[in-house]
């Protein structure tokens, strides 16, 4: 079945009415879209979990979709909300071991995702965007990021914190 924007809009409207077949098609298409969307936005090892979290959120909040409006902007808003939430949680947990794999299955899509991410990070001051890239996406430790960026470790933490806060505020405004 085709899963372009118009089809997704129609299928999601059916899913809101309880149509399981339509819903399965929507979720499968969303899963593919989310895998592409999150690849390059977080460390590769966390992508699957984040896709699952986002699908669960989509399920819990499916009533918030307006069937008269395009589907993908709604999915993108939910995906970004979960993404920023994940970044915050990861930061709070101060994980010591982050993985640095960036490349997904499709090289072109990974590049496209990276460009999109760069555009979003472009809204931040370079000192904040740089350390977020180093720690949150490339998987370096705070100490390594401090060495590479020339910022002190406390400053790296502050800039990550402030940058993530700004990203959260940008969720609806981009």
């Amino acid at each position, binding site marked *: 079945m085709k899963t372009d924007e118009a089809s997704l809009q129609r299928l999601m409207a059916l899913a809101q009415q309880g149509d399981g077949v339509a819903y399965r098609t929507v979720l499968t298409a969303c899963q593919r879209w989310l895998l592409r969307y999150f690849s390059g936005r977080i460390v590769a090892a966390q992508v699957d979990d984040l*896709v699952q979290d986002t699908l669960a959120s989509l399920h819990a909040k499916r009533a918030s979709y307006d069937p008269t409006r395009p589907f993908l*902007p709604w999915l993108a808003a939910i995906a970004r909300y979960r993404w920023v939430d994940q970044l915050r949680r990861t930061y709070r947990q101060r994980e010591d071991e982050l993985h640095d794999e960036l490349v997904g299955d499709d090289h072109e899509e990974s590049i496209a995702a990276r460009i999109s991410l760069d555009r979003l990070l472009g809204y931040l001051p370079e000192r904040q965007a740089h350390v977020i890239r180093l720690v949150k996406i490339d998987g370096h430790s705070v100490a390594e990021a401090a060495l590479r960026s020339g910022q002190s470790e406390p400053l790296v933490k502050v800039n990550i914190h402030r940058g993530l806060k700004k990203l959260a*505020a940008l969720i*609806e405004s*981009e």
Partner: protein
Amino acid sequence: MKMKTDIEALVADLQPVRPVEPRGGALLAIAAAAVAAAVVIAWQGLRPDIVAGNPHPMVMMREGMLLVLGFASLAAVVASARPGVGQSSGGWRWALAAASLFPLTSIVLSVASGSVPEEDLYSVNGPWCLGISLGSGMLIGAVLTLWLRRGAPTALNRIGWLVGLTAGSFGTFAYGLHCVSITVYFVGFWYAGAIGLSALIGRLVVPRLIRW
């Protein structure tokens, strides 16, 4: 394989849902504001000039401004329940800028005259204004917050401010139907204080209640 299983679990859990309607949230908030106004009128009484059908110009101006601010921020709140990249609902900013003319005018007049209007700042009606406005606002804010939990708001802090702003605007509107004062100082200090406090409470309380 695990993802496929998870999708099947979500499909198995599927129940029909009614799409969230911003109009429903707006009507609930307006109903709560109407209840608050009715309680204020029944308890404190309506201004005599309103009863006579000939309200003082200041009363019309402040009540009109509060309604504009309340509706503009309410529109932003209920729109936020249905997320979507690229949406914007910024009319409340202009309404807030217009409403801030009251406190700004008070400050300018006070500075120009070189005196603080003590009868308005220390008015016995001031704490009543604050208490009744905030009490009414609590009802309106609680109804809006409960309704928002059905939706998927994504900019939680901003929505917290806006819920407080909506609640404060409608709450002070309700009190204004009774309020005996007609000075710009009273509005600029006590009304603005009640709205500002309500917005602050909204910012502090609402995000944690609507997080998902």
